[in-house]
């Protein structure tokens, strides 16, 4: 029994979520290997080889894997699958895109968004926007799954590094190409890795007003998130959406500003340790999950908060 983790990275750096995945995988039992597939990504493999609990790193470095296109990646992973009982990826857009394709090629199910490992074949996952938790047992010989990083602590890193094995297989399905990419650059911590998140909703009124959240975030070293309504209205880009169908976060502190607290939004943040809500409507459902609620106009509260922090 061994688990292969498909690493989340951008060819330059290994994302923090991989540490959570290693921890989740170590609960399954058996060896844990990490696949770094990309282009010019040796440095990523180097950092992967220093994660405590990883027995081996596989490096597939080729132009065909540069953008981790599902058509090419899935063939590579299927090729490696014979040595593994579990294939695991983070429940990020990368993992969600690739893993079901891998599972179908192997004629097995995929278990999405695992939040708890009970044994090597039994896992818990949220359904209905997190309003129910299902415990499912896999009946397949190979378990393919995506794991929610925020549900597991991160593994440690060490100085000692394990062996990096080069994988030569180059699969180019030749049916898809990446033609453009708009990566949102930010000095802030990533949403899914931040300890503190300040999020704005429709109540922010427009995109410019998000600078008021930025000021608070600067003081707290926080990431900035948003509700679907704020993204749909064009206030902020899609990568900031927190929720059932956006990013799932669980920081130490989540400050929801001008967000009503629809079930789809709660699904993405209700596992945060401490929740603060700032909303002028005292009946807003967000107050039902908030540890600290401040019923006030956000345009008064935000400058005050930035000032006093």
């Amino acid at each position, binding site marked *: 029994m061994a688990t292969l983790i498909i690493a989340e990275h951008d060819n330059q750096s290994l994302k923090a979520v991989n540490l959570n995945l290693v921890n989740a995988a170590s609960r399954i039992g058996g060896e844990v290997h990490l696949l770094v597939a990309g282009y010019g990504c040796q440095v990523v493999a180097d950092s992967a080889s220093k994660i405590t609990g990883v027995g081996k790193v596989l490096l597939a470095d080729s132009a065909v894997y540069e953008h981790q296109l599902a*058509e090419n990646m899935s063939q590579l992973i299927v090729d490696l699958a014979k040595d593994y009982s579990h294939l695991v990826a983070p429940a990020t857009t990368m993992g969600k895109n690739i893993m079901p394709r891998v599972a179908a090629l192997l004629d097995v199910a995929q278990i999405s968004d695992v939040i708890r490992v009970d044994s090597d074949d039994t896992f818990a996952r949220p*359904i209905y926007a997190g*309003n129910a938790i299902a415990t499912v*047992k896999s009946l397949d010989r190979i378990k393919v799954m995506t794991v929610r990083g925020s549900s597991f602590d991160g593994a440690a890193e060490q100085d000692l590094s394990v062996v990096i094995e080069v994988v030569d297989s180059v699969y180019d399905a030749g*049916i898809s190409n990446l033609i453009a*990419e708009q990566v949102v650059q930010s000095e802030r911590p990533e949403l899914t890795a931040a300890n503190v998140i300040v999020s704005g909703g429709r109540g922010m009124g427009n995109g410019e007003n998000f600078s008021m959240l930025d000021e608070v975030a600067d003081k707290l070293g926080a990431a900035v998130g948003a509700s679907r309504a704020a993204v749909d209205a064009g206030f902020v880009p899609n990568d900031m959406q927190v929720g059932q169908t956006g990013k799932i976060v669980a920081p130490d*502190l989540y400050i929801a500003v001008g967000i009503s607290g629809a079930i789809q939004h709660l699904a993405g943040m209700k596992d945060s*340790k401490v929740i603060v809500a700032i909303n002028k409507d005292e009946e807003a459902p967000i107050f*039902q999950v908030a540890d*600290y609620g401040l019923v006030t106009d956000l345009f008064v509260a935000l400058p005050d908060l930035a000032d006093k922090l």
Partner: protein
Amino acid sequence: MKILVTVKRTIDANTKIRVMSDNSNVDLNNVKMALNPFCEIAVEEAVRMKEKGDASEVLVVSIGDKACQEQIRTALALGADRGIHVETEASIEPLNVAKILAKVVAEEQVSLVILGKQSIDADNNQTGQMLAALTNMPQGTFASEIQIHGDKVQVSREVDSGLQTVELAMPAVITTDLRLNEPRYASLPNIMKAKRKPLVMTTPAELGVDIKQHTQLLKVEAPAERQAGVKVASVAELIEKLKHEAKVI
């Protein structure tokens, strides 16, 4: 160009479900059902492609018990041309759904399949990717823009780092994200007209698909409830609590 759109009957997005007391599943008795919101977006996109002249026919398919014909009719009222109902009693796993869809794709020779990215009940986010694998088609998941260029389709995808545009050789599979479009409402005349549009029925067996169980549901539980906290009177009090009580800043 023929487009196949998949439509799933799910709970209405505004309903909060409850877990059954014996923890066997969620309680769907008397729960309002609807067309999965992502499928609604898929139907809208296909209908717009037809209106623009990019597509010649929009076919919709739903897999489930008799009740899902209601969602097929909704899709027909929104502008789809023809419906297929694949009848099964069981609520089946994504891999089985994908196998059924693969048969429909082969029989109908479609150029594009548009699915929702996720069912809001099981939150799987799998079926489109699996269908693409089984039919060896490229996939454009989480689409926020679709453009047809000859025998290729360009798809802008909502990804964690921002946006990404891929070019796929058709036939291709696309799954919809929230920003792709804003679905229209069906007008009364169109609802009436939809009743006369063709809807054929078939079964997984007739399509030659053997439904296999890959996972077993052991139990369904309610998540840990959060206790509502306290209201603070001012920003100063909030900061004081976060510093000294919660100790998070």
